[in-house]
């Protein structure tokens, strides 16, 4: 019988109305994956790209060589940042539904990826965020009022009304601008790291993208430049299983992990349980130490699940089972750190609830302050002349003229 090639089109494991099926997610038991020395050679650790680094075991205890042995205080701070991120997201989602902001993107279910990474890096390390990494901002101490004012495009908006909600930036906090153009910041992070190496600084850069975004050519550019110049950079892929309606197989995740792309470039690569705060912390710390010591870039794939809709413009019930998150084998990062703290550090349901309500109140207070700087419908508003600022450092004549035209029209 003759055979002809047949176009293979990846099929999502489960669609609406079907039973969630995560049998494709390869898991390793907590504590089972070796931890190479930070100066180990890439070719001696290629197994890390297919295994799954996990620290918190099923009984909520920290086990194995990747246990970062954090102080109880740091664990509590991490939990607090994650809870605050979630409370912030919940509030902003609600505000979008009420028409107070035009758009929003939540990070529910992925909080550990950002929060643990930010805590594992030095404050002078430069972060190149994606639109779903608000935890980076929060873990670095960004005021929620600032984030809210950006979402409101109000008189205190850091972007001066020029960007959609969540496109934050924070130069003082060493966090670059979120770009709507997927993966564009990936090679930029490598370039930042190259500059650090050129200047002789020991700062490290890190960037985050979703697994869907690895399909863009900029992913390849980043890995090539990172490998060629051994740039001190951490390239994070947040594999949350879905890129809007297409599952991770459409970015090439059906046969090999996303981390497995790294060794082909000669880049140290690790696949980690993205819902395990301790594992993300440990792996990020390892990669940052490696970069700082001159051992080059690391690619980290964080295995997690996008618990919410892609954005407020999205309706995931059209393309995936409603109960997928409940079936997700790696659970909820917040609940897992909470249980770990209860098991090992004297945390309790009561303390947890008290913290949650304290943070919710804090978010409410921040919102009430943010709207005093204006909303989409009520002032104070930004000065509309701002529209023409910052296209160039100095405004050229044609923009001065156009600004004049706009003013004249307003006066008519």
């Amino acid at each position, binding site marked *: 019988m003759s055979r002809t090639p047949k176009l293979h089109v990846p099929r999502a494991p489960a669609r609406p109305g079907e039973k969630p099926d995560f049998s494709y997610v390869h898991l390793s038991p907590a504590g089972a994956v070796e931890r190479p020395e930070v100066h180990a050679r890439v070719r001696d650790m290629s197994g890390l790209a297919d295994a799954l680094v996990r620290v918190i075991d099923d009984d909520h205890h920290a086990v194995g060589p990747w246990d970062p042995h954090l102080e109880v205080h740091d664990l509590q701070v991490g939990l607090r940042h994650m809870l605050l991120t979630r409370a912030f997201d919940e509030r902003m989602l609600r505000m979008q539904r009420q028409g107070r902001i035009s758009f929003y993107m939540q990070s529910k279910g992925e909080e550990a990826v950002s929060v643990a990474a930010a805590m594992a890096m030095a404050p002078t390390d430069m972060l190149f965020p994606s639109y779903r990494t608000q935890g980076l901002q929060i873990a670095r101490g960004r005021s929620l009022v600032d984030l809210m004012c950006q979402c409101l495009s109000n008189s205190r908006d850091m972007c001066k009304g020029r960007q959609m909600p969540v496109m934050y930036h924070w130069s003082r906090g060493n966090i670059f601008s979120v770009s709507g153009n997927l993966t564009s910041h990936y090679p930029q992070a490598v370039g930042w790291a190259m500059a650090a190496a050129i200047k002789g600084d020991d700062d490290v850069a890190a960037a985050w993208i979703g697994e869907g975004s690895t399909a863009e050519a900029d992913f390849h550019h980043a890995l090539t430049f990172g490998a060629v110049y051994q740039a001190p950079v951490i390239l994070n892929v947040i594999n949350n299983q879905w890129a809007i309606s297409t599952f991770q197989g459409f970015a090439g995740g059906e046969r090999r992990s996303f981390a497995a792309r790294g060794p082909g470039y000669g880049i140290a690569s690790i696949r980690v349980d993205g819902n395990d705060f301790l594992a993300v912390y440990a792996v990020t710390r390892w990669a940052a130490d490696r970069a700082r010591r001159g051992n080059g870039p690391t690619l980290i794939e964080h295995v997690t699940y996008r618990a919410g809709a892609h954005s407020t413009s999205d309706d995931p019930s059209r393309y995936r089972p409603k109960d997928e998150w409940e079936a997700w084998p790696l659970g909820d990062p917040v609940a897992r750190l909470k249980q770990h703290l209860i098991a090992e550090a004297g945390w309790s349901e009561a303390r947890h609830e008290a913290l949650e309500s304290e943070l919710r109140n804090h978010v409410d207070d921040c919102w009430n302050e943010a709207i005093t700087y204006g909303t989409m419908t009520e002032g104070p508003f930004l000065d509309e002349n701002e529209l023409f600022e910052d296209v160039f450092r100095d405004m050229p004549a044609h923009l001065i003229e156009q600004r004049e035209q706009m003013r004249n*029209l307003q006066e008519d």
Partner: protein
Amino acid sequence: MPQMNMIQALNSAMDIMLGRDPGVIVIGEDVGYFGGVFRTTDGLQRKYGEHRVIDAPIAEGGIIGSVIGMGVNGLRPVAEIQFADYIYPGFDQIASQLAKLRYRTAGEFCAPVTIRSPCGGGIRGGQTHSQSPEGLFTHICGIKVVMPSNPYDAKGLLISAIEDDDPVVFFEPKRIYNGPFDGDPDKPAVPWSTHPAGEVPEGYYSVPIGRAEVVRPGEDLTILCYGTMVHVAQAAARLVEADAEIIDVRTMVPLDVATLRQSVEKTGRCVIVHEATRFSGYGAELSATIQEECFYSLEAPIVRVCGWDTPYPHAFEWQYFPGQKRLVAAIEQVLEAG
């Protein structure tokens, strides 16, 4: 006749062409199972299968590069780029490859590819969901560039684009997907069912590429526009006591110079409108063409009304958008001059 909005009309065009020609395939981010983020390809995968309506990895360069290969190998691909603002990773494949393949191989190779992409603002999409980059494409030799302003034309032009043996970049003004928007954001939205061009035949028909349409005949001045601006221009013309002739350019490359010339020779006055930024925008081409073709008929300087030369903002969208007020001012200026 059935009523369709622009999304349904575009869907119907692809449906018909998938049905008529086994070489037609549709590919893009989220276009398959989901039916597209704007639902333009809704139901097509169910009907024609996942080998003909194909979800793509998020890689615009990959999408455009691969449809060129498919086109060379005998298919007639329709690629969707989710937002025109995200077409740039595929720009090299369009500018250096798709547009020039026929020329550089003396006609031995070509790729009959259609690239559809929603463009334009007025949806609070900020700088990455609002751009009108048509001028970047009209400056490339070897691709046709089209932008419909209503459901009837959208379907007929998309069918022509798919049937065309040359590559076509097909921009869809997303602000008018669901209804004709006249530039006044405070007015309640009107659906296409209130508009004559919302009547769209169920079956096959085509609207030729290369023909402009006079949407309103008039004597006093000519307004050249396309996309969303066709509706803004009509509303603005109603506000002034002038008998404006409004021309929907519809296809930017090739341009229907004869229709434009005829109109301006008659009216002697011309306003050019587009949402895209002004400097080196397509309006400059229109203005130069009118000047060259109709110089001795012109009674006043040509005036352009365009987006300001800044990135598309999130706040101040309506200060940015070239709305009725700016158009009225331009019309008055052109009528008073000379």
